[in-house]
């Protein structure tokens, strides 16, 4: 059961995050202009309640985290060996896509995304993946722009 210690750290951090979020919500609510409306129920009430709720849940979870860990979490040995490289590659894929789609266009950005995600899952056949990606992205691009009327960035290609 030596894997229990790292589990608690993660849980504790998340709980503290919740408390921070709840506190932030309550604090931000003060800058919402209060209009009287009817019977003093304005746009601030629910945010206060929600902020309080978040903070309270965070506090309970933090307490659970330091007192033996969150209750009833199913044990999964898979959690003991995370593949952070995969996480990183996929994250890069998504973020890169976000950064370039505006000027590189949907097709190029999606191809980059596809290849990186596949790589994140362990696929070594980059050329095959790239070809599939280009075909898929192009097909999807045309279906969604022509048939469904969405407007997607074309990037350097200029047709239609």
């Amino acid at each position, binding site marked *: 059961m030596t894997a229990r210690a790292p589990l608690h750290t993660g849980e504790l951090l998340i709980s503290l995050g919740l408390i921070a979020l709840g506190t932030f919500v309550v604090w931000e609510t003060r800058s919402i202009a209060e209009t009287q409306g009817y019977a003093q129920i304005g746009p601030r009430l629910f945010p206060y309640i929600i902020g309080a709720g*978040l903070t309270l849940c965070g506090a309970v979870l933090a307490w659970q985290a330091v007192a033996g860990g969150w209750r009833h979490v199913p044990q999964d040995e898979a959690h003991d060996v995370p593949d952070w490289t995969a996480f990183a590659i996929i994250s890069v894929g*998504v973020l890169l896509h976000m950064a370039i789609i505006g000027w590189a266009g949907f097709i190029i950005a999606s191809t980059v995304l596809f290849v990186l*995600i596949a790589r994140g899952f362990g696929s070594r056949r980059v050329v095959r993946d790239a070809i599939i990606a280009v075909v898929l992205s192009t097909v999807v691009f045309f279906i*969604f722009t022509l048939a469904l009327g969405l407007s997607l960035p074309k990037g350097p290609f200029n047709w239609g």
Partner: protein
Amino acid sequence: MSGFAVALTLKNLMWGFLGVTLGTAIGVLPGVGPALTIALLLPATAGLDPTGALIMFAGIYYGAMYGGSTTSILLNTPGESATIVTALEGNMMAKRGRAGPALATSAIGSFVAGTIATILLTVMAPIVVDFALKFGPAEYFAVMVLAFTTVSAVLGASPARGLAALFFGLMIGLIGLDSQTGQARFTLAIPELLDGIDVVVVAVGLFAVGETLYIATYLNREEDRLETMKGSIWMSKSDWSRSWKPWLRGTALGFPFGTIPAGGAEIPTFLSYAIEKKLAKNPEEFGSGAIEGVAGPEAANNASATGTLVPLLTLGLPTTATAAIILAAFQQWGLQPGPLLFETQPLLIWGLIASMYVGNVILLVLNLPLIGIWVKLLEIPRPLLYAGILIFATLGAYGLRNSWFDLALLYIVGVIGFLMRRYDVPVAPVLVGMILGPLAEQQFRRALAISQGDLTVFVSHPISATVFAITALVLVGPPLWRRFARKGTA
């Protein structure tokens, strides 16, 4: 009855067919569920006629149930929690070369359950609607609080985590302009946040991006074992005689659980499994491929899915994540499901319900003879599968308003989804909170406006008071029960 006229028009039949086909294909794929699929299609369908699009969404909802069963039987990792039970016996049957009958009993059982459940829906809807017409804002608010409570604090392992997820979802729902006063809330001086965070971004972030990150980080070590379909797909006479009662029992179990805001399909399917095991002539077969263990839970699963449409259509109350997304779909066209919609748009609602009958028939046809096609989908290598899923995910998020900000949000929500998966925090409360929260706030403020600030209005109205009492009962009941049960055995 005129609903059938609507459902059977060629155009809507086409939508229904498209829906069930897409739904089955999606349901078969591991990692994608009906909630995600519908969320992805929301922007694409915004300009279309709502009746046809909703018929398609219903088809997707059903089809995904059918497709998910196929995966559970043939693959050793089930797609959704509702089909875990099917995997127990179904996969064992497949390993013994009996995949055909397993798939058959699952499809036919789903058809029986779906049809019966839809009949029940047809009968119950007018009754509930009649009752709901007496609802004012106080009553609606009470019912929404009940829904919040049951989706977060009753199901699942930990009320604290469920409530945390709920409040998180409620918070997301707050971002944007307050509907009553037009005040900007939590927009942090970022103009893109003035319209709030779109449900598509959250749903896709949690389900697609979060799931992808999670699987890649933790579950990518082994290949799944795909059982082949040897032998015939037809069931023997003994298979039939062993299946039909579980089908009916499963339906009877599943539907009520689907209708109440405490549902979700896990409870009825597990219950059905336990009951079938108890009632079976050869209980020792369970664990190595007993057909009753597939027939009952599958029927329960489908009946429960139809059941969730009862509170959704009659009261506008979503009880599962998928139901919440369907509610968001209605909202996209400015429609609010509830008793009023039955009055103002009867053709839409009844056409939708009628299309479910038709959909069940189409699904039976699609799933038995065409099973070979769906199995091919299961053979897509995991890297390509998730890469493809993310293409659609980013398309969905970006296509909303061509803003990189939505993609940034998508990633952030995705990481949150990853953490939630990792630390066993339920996802459904986030979606229900986000979609239902603003509505609940509206009703609360309206109720207080009418009562001139008198908070006791929630208990002085009998219906509202009763619903709150039920909520309280549902909250403290189970823990008290457990305490008494322990005392009894101690």
